[in-house]
């Protein structure tokens, strides 16, 4: 089949190839790359001489859709951003709208959001390391980690009623409280998780093959990482201790004792180690949060923000009107704009929202952490082996849902 020249991307021009270089196409559906992304490579032997990353295969128009629904109706869409850590997106969106409205959720609600965010962070890292290990040949580890993830999914399912798409947060509160046996179930799940993590740690961390594939590959310097707007584990692997939970604490993160692991080489191995440690820190935060968890309401007792309880809707006219208005028109933040950042699984997840004072958002912008990471992938794989792309791509943990929205 003859490929026509004008079908090729602009900076992948065959006649401009230097002597000895070869054009190679990876993806969009490559067996060793989870997520749909196309990497157009020019290679010199086994080495990557240049690359162009093509994305856009999973664009769903999240931002456009949000402009046409009420604020609370955006919440289920946020599940589908980073679908391996949906609670972080939920909480971030709710926080952003609350910041715009100038209100603060109840203490119990904030603690529950922290707990669910940290459980989400663990599932995110488990998926990243599990899939990465699988792509590098350690299939057993994948099953150990996905086993732990499944236990966590069952736990979060019991809370929110959804494994991957919980839509748990609402502006000013949550859909429901924690189940009564949550504490005990969390302890059981953490036992499974600790065992699986220890097993994975023993199988991977000092494994010669795994170490050689990760150590010294996908290196990015501190300066490059900052210039490329990297955040999260990839930035921390270069030694910059930036974690939004510590830097600008939101929710009640300032009440917990936890460490921010940083690397020193900025390579894939450091990213792996950072993620492994972060899961243990997340467990620490969750345990502290469960110990401190206050009693009380989970929703703000303000009929302008959260739906009134059903008994009141049927019993008094104010609650009935509030229910009607909230359902049809939605919450109405004042006109204005705010940016709210939280620490997502892959880095800073930011919501920039603009309101014109009506029930529909004027503009919802998500700052997806892996967008800039994928933008910098070219830089990270250049000069390395073709096989290293798999390791590097796995460690930036590209999630199509949030990358392309």
């Amino acid at each position, binding site marked *: *089949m003859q490929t*026509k020249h004008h*079908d090729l991307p*602009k*900076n992948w021009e065959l006649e401009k190839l230097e002597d000895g270089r070869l054009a190679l196409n990876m993806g969009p559906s490559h067996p060793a790359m989870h997520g749909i992304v196309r990497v157009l490579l020019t290679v010199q032997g086994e080495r990557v001489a240049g690359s162009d990353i093509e*994305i*856009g295969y999973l*664009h769903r*128009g999240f*931002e*456009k*859709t949000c402009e*046409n629904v009420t604020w609370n109706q955006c919440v289920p869409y946020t599940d589908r951003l980073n679908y391996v850590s949906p609670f972080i997106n939920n909480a971030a969106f709710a926080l952003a709208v609350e*910041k*715009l409205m*100038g209100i603060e959720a109840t203490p119990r609600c904030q603690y529950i959001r922290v707990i669910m965010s940290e459980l989400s962070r663990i599932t995110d890292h488990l998926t990243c390391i599990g899939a990465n290990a699988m792509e590098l040949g350690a299939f057993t580890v994948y099953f150990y980690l996905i086993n732990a993830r499944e236990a966590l999914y069952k736990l979060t399912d019991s809370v929110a009623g959804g494994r991957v798409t919980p839509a748990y947060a609402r502006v000013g509160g949550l859909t429901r409280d924690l189940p009564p046996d949550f504490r005990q179930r969390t302890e059981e799940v953490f036992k499974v998780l600790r065992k699986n993590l220890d097993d994975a740690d023993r199988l991977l961390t000092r494994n010669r093959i795994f170490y050689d594939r990760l150590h010294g590959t996908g290196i990015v310097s501190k300066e*490059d990482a*900052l*210039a*490329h*707007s*990297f*955040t999260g584990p990839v930035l921390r692997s270069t030694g*910059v201790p*930036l974690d939004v939970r510590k*830097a*600008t604490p939101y929710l009640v993160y300032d009440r917990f004792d936890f460490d921010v692991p940083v690397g020193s080489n900025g390579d894939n191995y450091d990213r792996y180690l950072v993620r492994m440690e972060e899961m243990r820190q997340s467990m620490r935060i969750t345990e502290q949060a469960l110990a401190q968890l206050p009693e009380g309401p989970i929703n703000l007792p303000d009929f302008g923000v959260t739906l009134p309880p059903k008994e009141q809707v049927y019993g008094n006219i104010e609650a009935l009107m509030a229910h009607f208005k909230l359902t049809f028109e939605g919450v109405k933040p004042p006109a*204005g*704009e*705010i*940016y709210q*950042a939280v620490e997502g699984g892959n880095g*800073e997840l*930011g919501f*920039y929202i*603009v309101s014109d004072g009506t029930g529909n958002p*004027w*503009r919802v*912008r998500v*700052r997806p952490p892996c*967008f*800039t990471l*994928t*933008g*910098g992938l070219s*830089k990270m794989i250049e000069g390395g082996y073709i096989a290293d792309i798999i390791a590097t791509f796995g460690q930036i943990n590209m999630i199509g849902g949030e990358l*392309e*929205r």
Partner: protein
Amino acid sequence: MNSYLLDEIKTKFPQDVLETHSFRGDETAVVRREALAEVAQFLRDGLGFDILMDLTAVDNLPREPRYELVCHFYSTGHNYRLRLKCPVPADNPSVKSLTGIWSGANWLEREVYDMFGLNFEGHPDLRRILMYDGFEGHPLRKDYPLKKRQPRIAHRD
């Protein structure tokens, strides 16, 4: 209520800063679009904002000037955030690119170009990123209908 930071920018660029404000703890400086790159350079070199966290746009149809370019900066050294905005008129939607200052601006500006149709002068590789070649219009513009159909693209072999 203005902070040291906003005052600093105002003193440095008295001609270019159109407005500054602080809402819910977010500090914003609105500058003329001709001065955006210059102010951004000063933010990085003079004030230590080393990360360009986000770069996006807002369509304010029917208000004039129609577009607004919105940049969020973060300083790892000072743990500080700042928002820089500049109005962009509809008849000549063009801004100087920040790719020379932060290489991360490359993809962010491509997305703004794709979604809003704003041009970035000096961008090395300005083409669509989320949409495909042959897509008509810019989806995040307010006059782009939510359920607009696109023409079929010819079969490629």
